[in-house]
């Protein structure tokens, strides 16, 4: 299906994401921050969909919004709100923060202004109905696959993390 009202949906999702991001750092209540973060992550999944990457969008929803954020909320809910309300919200490293924000902003502005020379003119058209199969071919195919090794390394890293969590949580194994 050809996309409809692309600019409208892009700006809708982008604004949702930015508002969500701002709310994450400005809300004092940690649960509100977490909910704002979920909104931002879901809007990001929408942006992935608009970039013809439905698989990444699905993984974003299932992992971040559905998995990680549920565990976040799980932990946050057990924290006393009264104490968090009294704690200071911002720390005093605003000088470093401004420098980092300026560097990142400068990068964004330079990409925005010089974008035409940085990226190829015509974007190859991706087949939306083949996205998962394309990702799989890129990862695992013996001829076209390039990232098998890095994928396996990443899964090893996750395994180490799982074992570490079990060792830390359980005193007697």
């Amino acid at each position, binding site marked *: *299906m050809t996309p409809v009202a692309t600019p409208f949906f892009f700006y809708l999702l982008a604004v949702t994401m930015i508002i969500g991001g701002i709310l994450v750092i400005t809300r004092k*209540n940690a*649960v509100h921050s977490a909910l704002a973060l*979920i909104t931002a992550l879901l809007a990001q999944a929408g942006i992935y969909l608009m970039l013809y990457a*439905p698989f990444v969008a699905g*993984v974003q929803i299932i992992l971040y919004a559905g998995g990680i954020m*549920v565990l976040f909320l799980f932990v946050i*809910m057990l924290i006393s709100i009264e104490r968090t309300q009294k704690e200071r919200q911002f720390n005093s490293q605003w000088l470093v923060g401004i420098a980092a924000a300026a560097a990142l902003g400068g990068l964004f502005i330079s990409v925005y202004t010089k974008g035409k020379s940085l990226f190829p003119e015509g974007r190859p058209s991706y087949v939306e*109905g083949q996205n*998962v199969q394309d990702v799989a071919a890129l990862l695992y195919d013996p001829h076209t696959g390039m990232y098998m090794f890095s994928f396996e390394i990443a899964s090893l890293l996750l395994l180490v993390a799982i074992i570490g969590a079990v060792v830390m949580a359980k005193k007697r194994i």
Partner: protein
Amino acid sequence: MHDLIQYITGYLDKNVKVTPGAAGNIFWITVYILLVFVGLSVAVIAMNWLERKILAHMQVRLGPMRVGPHGLLQPIADALKLLLKEDIMPAEADAIVFWIAPFIVVLAAFTVFIVVPFGPAHAITDMNIGILFMLGVSSLSVLGIVTAGWASNSHYPLIGALRSSAQMVSYEVAMGLAVISVILMTSLNAQGVGTLSMIGIVQAQQAQGTWFIFKFFPLGLVGFFIFAVAMVAETNRAPFDLPEAESELTAGFHTEYSGFRWSLFFLAEYSAMIAVSSIAVTLWLGGWLRPFPSLHGPEIAIAHIWPPSDPALPKGALDFVFALFPGISFLFLGAVCFYNTARMPKHPLFKIQTLGLAGFGAVLALIGLILFVPPVRDRVGDIFWFSAKVAAFMYLYIWYRGTFPRYRFDQLMKVGWKILLPMGLGLLVCSGFVAMRSEVWHQIVLPLSHWFVSLL
């Protein structure tokens, strides 16, 4: 104006055999969304009545009998009561989160129906990531439950929400492993390329000539069993209904909710049940395919009735018999209504109720007759079989609730992590091996099954 009519009727062309989403027809997408929404709401209302009635009969009670004949209008009376009830919010509750939580649950429960395939062209749209989308979005409903429990600022809801999130996160793992084994089975074609699309999964079962529950017996059956247990836990239903265990937590995460907002939780619970059942039906029970989809029987022809108007549809005698099923089942329901009309008490005070039941029977019989009209018959067959299979699951849910006692929380975690998860991992390894060496499997299993049949 002419273009508009063409745009609308263009989708009805017999050559268009895709979903409205794939055809990009916004008018029919809207129509399908409305149809699914209305159908789902009617199904939830019917489920409300059926659950109380069937549970009552299992416990040798009558169930609702007062509002309408055999309590048929009870769900409508309940809905009216809920809408008129005062909407109470606890004084110390977090107002915004308390307000948002039911909507998160409802949105998650209804959004998944975008990809549910009621037929090869009867879905709102077909996504390349279909099953991933369904699992992902339905897992979002736990967010609504957790926030509802937290925002109520009360002990019972908080404990209910904690139990719920722990339970849903645990059982999602086993569920995912069972689903992966099915996706492995879809890749057993000439190209060796599988699919995540819901319609693609059913088409793979059609192409391989078997429902995946019977594929690589008993591997498909084991996968189905894992999913069937995990899906009851995912929807917080008995025997895994600890988040709302009334003897311990009054009503769990929705203790503080009342009126309209409570009814949203109710709606979401039942539509989530329908959603996970339709995943199970799509993945293991052949989706919209009728029983024995590869048997057609001899080709027959009856003037004006058979073969179907669409030449692509099969023309066998068995196809004809199965095509009559939807109409016959509705006629049967109508006949049951008429039988019970005759059994109604003859007292004059019961006159309205008797007439109402007869009218309801007449409506059902009329629907049955409409389903016999050839163009309608050829289009709704797949929807009927899909809904019938989902309805069987709905009955099972009620049956579980009437049969099994509730698990304790440690037993629940034990079942999830120590039984279903290792089973799922073993299943994945086995089906991976069998998929690679399917001829070996056939050399072992087929002679064994022939030997077993020869014994009988």
